């Protein structure tokens, strides 16, 4: 008998999905190299003698005005960006999905509170809200993550609540209630498996937005503080130098672009692979 | 009498993976005649109807065959000429009257637009439209003209759609299950209305349905479709009184007869219809047929014309009359 195809098989059929996954894996590997201290140079070490060198054999991506290695700083910045993105999206998923599913399933006043609160958060421009929160919380990477998580929680509330509302009305949920199943059982076994797909896709897409937001915050002088490296901060610092040291601006920008494109491709691939309607045609 | 519409060897496939959806469909309709196409879901009846107006959904295309209407092959017409024919000479009524009307436009304006678009010369368009509503039995046409579709009940919406489709006095009306979504008493009203309008206007009609009961007293001839092919064609009387294809016979036997007093076990056809693209060179009904022979699995029975009736079966059931 032919083995049933699962979503991984469908994902691997998509070229863009594979490209996205490869890009993201490269960035993760580079971050891990930095995390284990295996970067070619110390990202914080200043070598004034080597300041503002173009890309060469010793400094692959060149150096900045303090003679720090831009490659080592870039992969360290990537590590920081990914950490912030993972933590913030993780928190947003945890709270957003819980609130969205509970609100959508229980309805009534609980749902009202959830929806109104997320509407209020939605009403603020994301970056402005994140700025305000970081200002009041502090500048550590955890504070930044919490700020971004608060901004993204309403998105996950919406992504989880919508499918719950429509699945709740399906006859198999009515049937589950008539069969006397408990609410946790109905939620866990009959509703969640059917709202899982859009959430996974949203996680992939939100990771890329979170990286952009973290870069934006650092660029604006919040978030990561010098001398620590962050892709956004590096772009910010490189502004003044870009005219005569293009590499100081180009490489961190390219890193941001690659990881954002990669995560978006992964998100699109997952969307297709997890959609039973698309799968059943093949 | 000459044919108003004739479909010859019409085959429809999906564009991407070349799956056959209908194969070698032949239908002809003389002027003033009403033909019912009966089939279950997936039999290809709706695709056949849509192909006539060039309205096949994206990803599905006619790969061979001809559709001749009044001497013109609709498949090779300029889009301009096809648009002219749609609505003016052939019009269509759909299953769901809500989606057939524009929700943000009054019914009156939608009817006037039809006249306007086709440059239909009438002295007084407003009164022409009003009369068309009276003709389909809409009470208070003045108010109806100013109403939006959502203010109508399902039955009234379908009446409005029929009024719109009759507005330009088409030669052919194609109806795709227009009463399936309606209650039985309303269904009867619509059937009665369509039947009257057809005989008054000498209009031809193609009525697509899954419900044999609906066409029993409505059309002159019936074509039965199964897995993308026509398996039997004949006059309504022949099809209902002496079906020759085992599928037609099985279908009729499986319906409980409302007027009968017996409640015997319903005759049933085992299994489910095959996907048309998986049939190949054998009778598509072979796996479900109680009279199946070796030959049925080895070659494809074709429609064989015997007088006015034909059946695609090697071993047709002997006619009882």
């Amino acid at each position, binding site marked *: 008998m032919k083995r049933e195809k699962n979503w991984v098989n469908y994902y691997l059929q998509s070229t863009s999905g594979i490209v996205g996954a490869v890009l993201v894996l490269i960035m993760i590997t580079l971050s891990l190299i930095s995390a284990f201290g295996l970067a070619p140079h110390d990202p914080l070490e200043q070598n004034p003698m080597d300041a503002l060198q173009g890309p060469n054999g010793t400094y692959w991506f060149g150096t900045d005005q303090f003679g720090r290695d831009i490659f080592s700083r870039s992969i360290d910045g990537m590590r920081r960006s990914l950490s912030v993105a993972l933590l913030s999206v993780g928190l947003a998923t945890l709270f957003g999905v819980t609130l969205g599913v509970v609100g959508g399933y229980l309805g009534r006043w609980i749902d009202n509170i959830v929806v109104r609160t997320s509407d209020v958060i939605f009403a603020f421009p994301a970056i402005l809200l994140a700025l305000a929160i970081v200002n009041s919380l502090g500048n550590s990477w955890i504070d930044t993550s919490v700020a971004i998580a608060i901004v993204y929680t309403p998105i996950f509330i919406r992504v989880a609540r919508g499918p719950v509302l429509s699945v709740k009305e*399906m*006859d*198999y949920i*009515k*049937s*589950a*209630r*008539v*069969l*006397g*199943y408990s609410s946790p*059982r109905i939620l866990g*076994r*009959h509703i969640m*498996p*059917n709202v899982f797909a859009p959430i996974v896709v949203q996680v992939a897409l939100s990771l890329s937005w979170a990286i952009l937001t973290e870069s934006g915050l650092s660029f604006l002088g919040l978030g990561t503080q010098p001398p620590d490296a962050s892709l956004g901060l590096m772009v910010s610092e490189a502004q003044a130098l870009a005219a005569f040291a293009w590499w100081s601006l180009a490489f961190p920008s390219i890193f941001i672009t690659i990881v954002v494109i990669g995560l978006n491709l992964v998100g699109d691939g997952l969307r297709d692979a997890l959609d*039973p309607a698309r799968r*059943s045609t093949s | 009498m000459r044919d108003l519409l004739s479909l010859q060897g019409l085959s429809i496939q999906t564009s991407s993976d070349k799956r056959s959806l209908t194969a070698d469909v032949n239908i002809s309709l003389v002027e003033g005649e009403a033909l019912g196409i009966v089939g*279950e*879901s997936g039999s290809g009846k709706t695709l056949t109807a849509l192909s006539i107006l060039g309205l096949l959904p994206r990803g599905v295309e006619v790969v061979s065959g001809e559709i001749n209407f009044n001497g013109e092959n609709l498949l090779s017409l300029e889009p301009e000429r096809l648009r002219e024919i749609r609505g003016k000479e052939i019009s269509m009524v759909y299953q769901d009257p809500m989606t057939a009307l524009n929700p943000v436009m009054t019914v009156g304006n939608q009817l006037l637009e039809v006249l306007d678009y086709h440059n239909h010369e009438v002295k007084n368009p407003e009164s022409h439209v009003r009369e068309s509503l009276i003709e389909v039995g809409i009470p208070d046409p003045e108010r109806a003209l100013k109403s939006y579709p959502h203010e109508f*009940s*399902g*039955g*009234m919406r379908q009446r409005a759609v029929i009024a719109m489709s009759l507005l330009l006095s088409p030669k052919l009306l194609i109806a795709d299950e227009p009463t399936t979504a309606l*209650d*039985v*008493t309303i*269904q*009867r*009203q619509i*059937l*009665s209305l369509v*039947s009257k309008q057809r005989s008054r206007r000498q209009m031809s009609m193609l009525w697509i349905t*899954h*419900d*044999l*009961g*609906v066409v*029993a*007293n409505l059309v002159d001839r019936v074509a039965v479709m199964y897995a993308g092919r026509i398996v039997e064609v004949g006059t*309504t009387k022949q099809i*209902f009184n002496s079906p020759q294809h085992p*599928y037609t016979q*099985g279908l009729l036997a*499986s*319906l*409980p*007869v*409302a*007027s*009968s*007093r017996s*409640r015997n*076990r*319903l*005759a*049933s*056809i085992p299994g*489910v*219809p095959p996907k048309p693209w998986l049939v190949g060179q054998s009778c598509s009904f072979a796996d479900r047929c109680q009279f199946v022979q070796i030959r049925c699995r080895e070659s494809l029975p074709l429609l064989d014309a015997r007088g006015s009736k034909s059946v695609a079966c090697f071993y047709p059931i002997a006619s009882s009359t």
Partner: protein
Amino acid sequence: MTLVIDNVFKKYPIRQSKTVVNALNGISLNISKGQTLGIVGESGCGKSTLARLIVGLESPTQGAITWRDNVLLRGSKNQWRNHLSPAQLVFQDPYSSLNPRQRIGECIREVISAHNLRKKEEIDSRVTELLKVVGISGDMKNRYPHQLSGGQRQRVSIARALAAEPELIILDEPVSALDVSVRADVMNLLVDLRKEFGLTYLFISHDLSMVRHISDVIAVMYLGRVVELGTWDEVLDNPQHPYTKALIAAIPDHSQVGQMDLTVSLEGEVPSPTNIPLGCAFHVRCPIAVPNCSKMIPQLLPIKSSQSVACSEVVK
């Protein structure tokens, strides 16, 4: 008596338009053990609302639904939350009635294990047995719903209902969404199961020919009330209410070909349940209405021992 429905009303207030949908307007019915009650009526007659009330998905606005003399469904809502309802539902749409991410064997096993209806070691054989009873072979139990045909899914729904060992199975248009050639199969299965296990059915449909085929007793509903009630042959052979007569006349009948008798059996359409006509709700469409019909709601009164009609012109 298994189930008693006593003068039940169900109203749904609509906040935006400040109107009320009167889905059920004083309906009384009894279903005895082993009997099949057929309910027939057009859209808006309240037949599906009644099904939801009986299984406990909703509660009546007024009136009571009683099982074996214990009033269980009066007032308080969600009577059966976390309890197995003694009535189980089979839905119309076989595509939304099964969880798309649950294998069909698991779907049936869950009913049994959640309520400890069988010993652990017996569950497997019970699942196979239930599938076999509805005509699905045991080796299909690892399939997902989308791998089954509409008729097979409807069989799984029936098996799921049977797994709960209910007092009553409510069949809400169980064959309407199926292909014509598959309907007879499912109808035959329902008849066989009833004979084999002595089941009690409430068969709801707009299709009188299906209701006629399976019911012992038929109730004809119009706008939330029963207008005629009787044994199946009485209602069909000798309909008394003008609405029942119109309904019977409107059934497309393939046994009478070529008579071209397409006369309209009933003019007009069902009024909206938000705005039910005063008096007899049917009087606005009724061919035999007299002025008095708009003043008094006719009660369901017996004309024979087993047949009753709610029409003041018939019962005089």
